[in-house]
């Protein structure tokens, strides 16, 4: 109630007039009432009423925040956060080594960035995740939907069909092994067609379309509340050319990062971005570093770097708040993103995993 008039989200001209007239706190405005306000400032009664409604709404939300009312309050204790985090699911990648170093998979409510050289498998992983987020809960998935924003044009429907078919087959094998009711029921709705229908694809040709799409995302996600994954494939591509003003680029990127963090938190979705690598020419050698500059490095919570070592593709977890830095090998097969060799531990007594490359399901999952 003691909020300063200058900080209220009113039109700047109106704000300037209020301050010039001598109003200091929001309470004063509310006490004056619309008629008094319109006479004193010289605006119409309707405008005054509108302004007061804005002020009232602001003060109300301030009040609920300070009073700690449940539901709308934004603060909570670390214990509550811990419980939330443990109950939250992960999006698995079908490569158990990668899931392990990530602590279970791609986390919700966080931004994960994948950097890599051209052709190393970034888009493949994104397509795999867009399929994996849809796995029904009884198989250990999130039963969510996916938004795929493509700026480079590397999304291939045929490839997603291959990955999705392999995923459905994998779930069918599990269902046959366990023969449980809910498994079979879930399989009825988990088909190739439904997987493809729940991947929402946007093709953004330049940075303006990308900015516009990210502005519209919150509304889209409110309508499609089951979306649990937002992929932006190629955040670097639209920003790497045609930008004479680098400070504008930094500002736009920071704005994008902030909006994505808000989206990730509000809608409990995982945001996955892919970045390019660029050559940094040093004194005597050159190294590959992620593109878009130093300040962009702060945008993502988790950073994965994909690279080559002779014949082997490697993934390095470079930045994570909870897991330690490590490197694992992975493969791209016709079925998608997979481990290099069958995982050592198989707790599945039936042994119905016909394809040794696929990750066995953990028994303790509900």
């Amino acid at each position, binding site marked *: 109630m003691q909020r300063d008039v200058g900080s209220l*989200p*009113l*039109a*700047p*001209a109106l704000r300037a007039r209020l301050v010039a007239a001598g109003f200091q706190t929001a309470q004063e405005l509310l006490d004056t009432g619309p008629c008094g306000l319109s006479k004193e400032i010289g605006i119409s009664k309707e405008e005054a009423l509108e302004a007061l409604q804005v002020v009232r709404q602001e003060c109300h939300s301030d009040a609920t925040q300070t009073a700690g009312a449940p539901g709308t309050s934004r603060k909570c204790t670390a214990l509550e956060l811990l419980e939330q985090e443990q109950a939250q699911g992960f999006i698995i990648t079908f490569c158990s080594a990668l899931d392990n170093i990530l602590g279970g998979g791609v986390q919700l409510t966080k931004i994960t960035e994948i950097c890599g*050289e*051209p052709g190393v498998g970034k888009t*493949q992983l994104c397509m795999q995740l867009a399929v994996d987020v849809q796995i029904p809960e009884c198989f250990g998935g999130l039963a969510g939907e996916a938004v795929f924003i493509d700026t*480079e*044009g*590397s999304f*291939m*429907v*045929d490839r997603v069909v291959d990955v999705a078919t392999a995923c459905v087959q994998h779930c069918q094998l599990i269902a046959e092994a366990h023969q449980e009711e809910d498994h079979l029921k879930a399989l009825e709705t988990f088909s190739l067609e439904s*997987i*493809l*229908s729940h991947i*929402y*694809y946007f*093709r*953004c*040709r*330049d940075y*303006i*379309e990308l*900015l*516009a*799409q990210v*502005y*519209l995302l919150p*509304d889209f996600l409110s309508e499609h509340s089951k979306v649990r994954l937002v992929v932006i494939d190629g955040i670097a*591509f639209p920003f*790497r*050319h045609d930008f004479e003003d*680098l400070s*504008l680029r930094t500002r*736009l990127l920071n*704005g994008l990062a902030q909006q994505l963090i808000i989206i990730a938190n509000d809608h409990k979705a995982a945001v996955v971005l892919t970045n*390019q*690598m*660029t*050559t*940094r*020419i040093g004194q005597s*050698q*050159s*190294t*590959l*570093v992620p*593109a878009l*500059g*130093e300040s962009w*490095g702060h945008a993502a919570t988790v950073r994965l*770097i994909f690279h080559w*070592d*002779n*014949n082997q593709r490697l993934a390095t977890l*470079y930045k994570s708040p909870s897991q330690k830095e490590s490197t694992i090998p992975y*493969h*791209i097969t016709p079925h998608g993103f997979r481990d290099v060799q069958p995982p050592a531990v198989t707790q599945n007594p039936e042994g119905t995993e016909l394809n040794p490359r696929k990750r066995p399901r953990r028994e303790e999952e509900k």
Partner: protein
Amino acid sequence: MAPKKLRRARLSQELCERLSRYQITTCQDFLCLSLLDLMKVTGQSYRNVQKLLCKVSLACAPKMQTAYEMKVRRAVNPSSAFLSTSLHGLDKVLHGGVPCGSLTEITSPPGCGKTQFCIMMSVLATLPVSMGGLDGAVIYIDTESAFSAERLVEIAGNRFPAYFDSDEKLFSMTRSIYLYRELTCGSVLKRIKSLEEEIISKKVKLIIIDSVASVVRKEFDTKLQGNLTERSNFLARGASLLKYLAEEFSIPVILTNQITTWLSNGLAIQADLVSPADDLCLSEGASGGGKRESGSVTAALGNTWSHSVNTRLILQYHDLPTRQILVAKSPVAPFSAFFYTVEKSGFVLQAKSISQANTDPGENTDCESSRLQEVITRSQREEKNLNCADQ
């Protein structure tokens, strides 16, 4: 593709006038401002500005489609998703051939057959759909003056003797290949910009640019500082224009590139560097470096260009006259290698071509693959050097 004016975003007339006083006339200008700036400029409250932002974004944002709709659309027109190269093994690995709607790059040392491949593809694109072609015209942008019409006719006559049995058929094929000789970067870019209308009027189904590297390397001297940013700008603009054309009309685009030498002392001579002014970044120790050999070859035009092309085929010398074609980068195909020779009828795949489909290079499933391993290691190293070094 000019930025959209605000008037077309359904903003009110007075608002547009007010904004134009601040030099904000396009959606681009509007979306680049922060919320506070927008409030100042429009003179409206926070909530109203958010609504305006939504309105302008709606005017600019792309349309949504689900992956299922895309698949259905592809299924309706299966033959038009790829242009078959008439090299059976290569087509199988690439799931049909050169993909429509994306950029494909052919890179090789001089004399390996890039132009031959392009001429062959031009013939194939003019063939009717029943024979695996696209039944359309071809736009061939030639920067090296290497195109030979006689060779075109020779390949057509020898490769499809049954179809091109009369002179008339040959002439109608040659009539549908439009050749443009462009010798500078600026003229190439101008030509690409003008292509949109030509594609519609001439019913073009294939665009070939032979070669991008020669015109770029002629004009941009990489030793001069300012040239590097200009060069990457030119390449990026060209790439995004071509991608737009490829996707909009669902046609394949074939580009050729050159190979350059990379020397081991860390700084390349006669090679292409990526501009350090392009990115201000700290080295994160993620160098793909490793061991480098002296004199290894990499594709020219830099790292950024490698990101822009979706498929990359590398041609190499093997034991003459046999040469090798490698699928180095493809979203649908694993690494594969094929041997070929260049004959009167164009490319001919050798019977002893070895391809390892359906597995990633890291796995050795049988003993024959040790030979393949060597081939793949070499291509891997090249692909890696392509991307991670001074090029």
